[in-house]
């Protein structure tokens, strides 16, 4: 639809600007606050222009809260979750779309309804399993009166514990399913005639075709995993395994009980923690839009 009316143009632009201001203003304030010393930040009203303590604030909070280590943890967890989610989503969608077996739709709906069971809802049982990964099997075996000597596997304070409970994804499976449904059946048949087995077809044809999809999913999932707060907080007691978002929380309120927060440092840390997912979105944006909107086949 192409409209050529100056008034409508003006209104549209005004709306866009309003949206931009609404979205950007808090971040500008955060940035300004991160560039002043503590006294200036706490003044009322707060100055609206950046000060000259930026470098020292960032450096100080980076060292003090050991963000190097925490960011690395976050990066490992977010990457692990992203890779895991994509792998599982692609494989389960592949199974649902390309194989005819009984209860296929039942499995699809089982996956689908987990959309209604985010981690926060099932956090207690998930924690129980993370503390003793094989416990469900032991309980089942016990129900049959078996003592199989199943070992205890404790995932607390480990990358596996941080990553695994987050990798199952109904959204991803659904996204992949919708994509696979648009791939013409003849491609699978041609691959069959060419002698390629199912996994060969999956790797040689479906995966390359779904690159745009994968990028979109990866972007969403990376941001999701990076921003995880509750689960890491619950499962890590060892400070070495803490993630960046957890570390951020420790800055507000202040380092000692009853002290006012060091707002300038907290704001500097906030911007640093925000940066990696932001960069991922910026770099993946082209692919991201393509993956969710277009389908060039």
């Amino acid at each position: 639809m192409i409209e050529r009316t100056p008034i409508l143009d003006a209104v549209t632009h005004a709306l866009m600007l309003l949206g931009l201001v609404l979205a950007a203003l808090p971040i500008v304030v955060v940035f300004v606050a991160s560039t002043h010393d503590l006294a200036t930040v706490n003044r009322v009203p707060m100055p609206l222009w950046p000060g000259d303590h930026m470098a020292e604030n960032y450096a100080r909070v980076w060292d003090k809260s050991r963000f190097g280590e925490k960011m690395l943890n976050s990066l490992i967890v977010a990457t692990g979750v992203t890779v895991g989610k994509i792998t599982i989503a692609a494989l389960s969608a592949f199974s649902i779309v390309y194989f005819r077996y009984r209860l296929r739709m039942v499995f699809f709906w089982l996956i689908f309804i987990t959309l209604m069971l985010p981690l926060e809802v099932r956090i207690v049982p998930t924690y129980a399993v993370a503390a003793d990964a094989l416990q469900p099997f032991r309980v089942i075996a016990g129900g049959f009166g078996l003592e199989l000597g199943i070992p205890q596997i404790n995932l607390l304070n480990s990358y596996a514990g941080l990553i695994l409970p987050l990798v199952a994804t109904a959204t991803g499976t659904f996204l992949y399913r919708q994509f696979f449904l648009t791939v013409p059946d003849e491609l699978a048949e041609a691959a069959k005639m060419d002698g390629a087995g199912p996994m060969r077809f999956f790797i040689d044809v479906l995966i390359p075709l779904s690159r745009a999809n994968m990028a979109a999913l990866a972007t969403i999932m990376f941001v999701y995993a990076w921003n995880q707060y509750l689960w890491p907080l619950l499962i890590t007691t060892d400070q070495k395994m803490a993630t960046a978002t957890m570390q951020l929380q420790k800055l507000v309120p202040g380092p000692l009980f009853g002290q006012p927060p060091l707002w300038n440092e907290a704001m500097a840390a906030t911007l640093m923690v925000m940066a990696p997912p932001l960069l991922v979105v910026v770099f993946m944006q082209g692919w991201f839009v393509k993956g969710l909107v277009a389908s060039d086949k």
Partner: protein
Amino acid sequence: MADIGIRSVSKSYGRQPVVHGIDLDVRSGEFVVVLGPSGCGKSTLLRMIAGLEEITEGEIAIGGRVVNMLEPRERGCAMVFQNYALYPHMTVAENIGYALKVAGTARDERRRRVREVAATVGLDEFLDRKPGQLSGGQRQRVAMARAMIREPKVFLFDEPLSNLDAKLRVQMRIEIRKLHNRLGVTSVFVTHDQIEAMTLADRLVVMNAGRIEQAGTPEDIYRAPASRFVASFVGSPPMNLIDAVVDEAGGIVIGGVALPVPHRLAAGRKVTAGIRPEDVVLSDGGELRSDVDFVEELGSVRLLHGRLNDVDFVVQVAAADRRATGALAFTVPPKRIHLFDADTGLRIEHDTPVAIAAE
């Protein structure tokens, strides 16, 4: 190269039968065209040979080996699909060579053979392009090359020309036939286009509603269609079919006009008379009359469209005949009249076999 034996093969989806017990033998090196309207089960038959559909009943043998339980790749067939089914993310060379890559052929060997096959179908310059950058005809060639590179025992074509424009279709048709003459690989070609079928086939198989109506050389089928369905489907323009009744004299009556026929028939029997548009002889004293509504100009011939006994009736005349719309009188040589039973639709043979060619 291999022969294909199809023995009482049927196929049903759930309780819905689509192919009813088909028997067909394709000789080694033969080019068989399966012709039929959409939904007649011809593609299903082809896909059962390829191994893309399970065979509900009966058995298919390729080169003497029953293949019912074999995977498509073990059957030695290569298939050209209607929409080509090229892998969109691979270059032409990768598309053609994919079967070899799966089979684990060494890279140099693969490259050599891809180039060889691409040259036979005239694709040498396009090896690095993606399918999206090719025209319809070029994609068609890639699909052919992809099938050829495996040096299959059997070629299967599933309406491969129906996505091309008319001119290209004629050109590709000739190329496919030339290719077959050179390679001599057993081929089964499925189509709903009777001209394609007539021109390509060593042997033509006409299917309708999951059954074979007639199998034979294109010439035999054209000259002596085994049923009303085949008569209406093969030939362009199609045969005129008119209801008629047998009179006391053993001739037929069409709209009050009696015509003698070389068939022995019981009086009162209801039949369908078939008259090919080119068999009509115009003569002012002719007993049959039709009113021409409009004239179709085809260049080499002209088609006069009219009505006879309340059904459409087409007469073909030479281009030099400049007759326009209006009344038309004509006759039909008795030997040229095909008769079909009105109820079963089956052909009624002449009483004494008449060699039409001897006329």
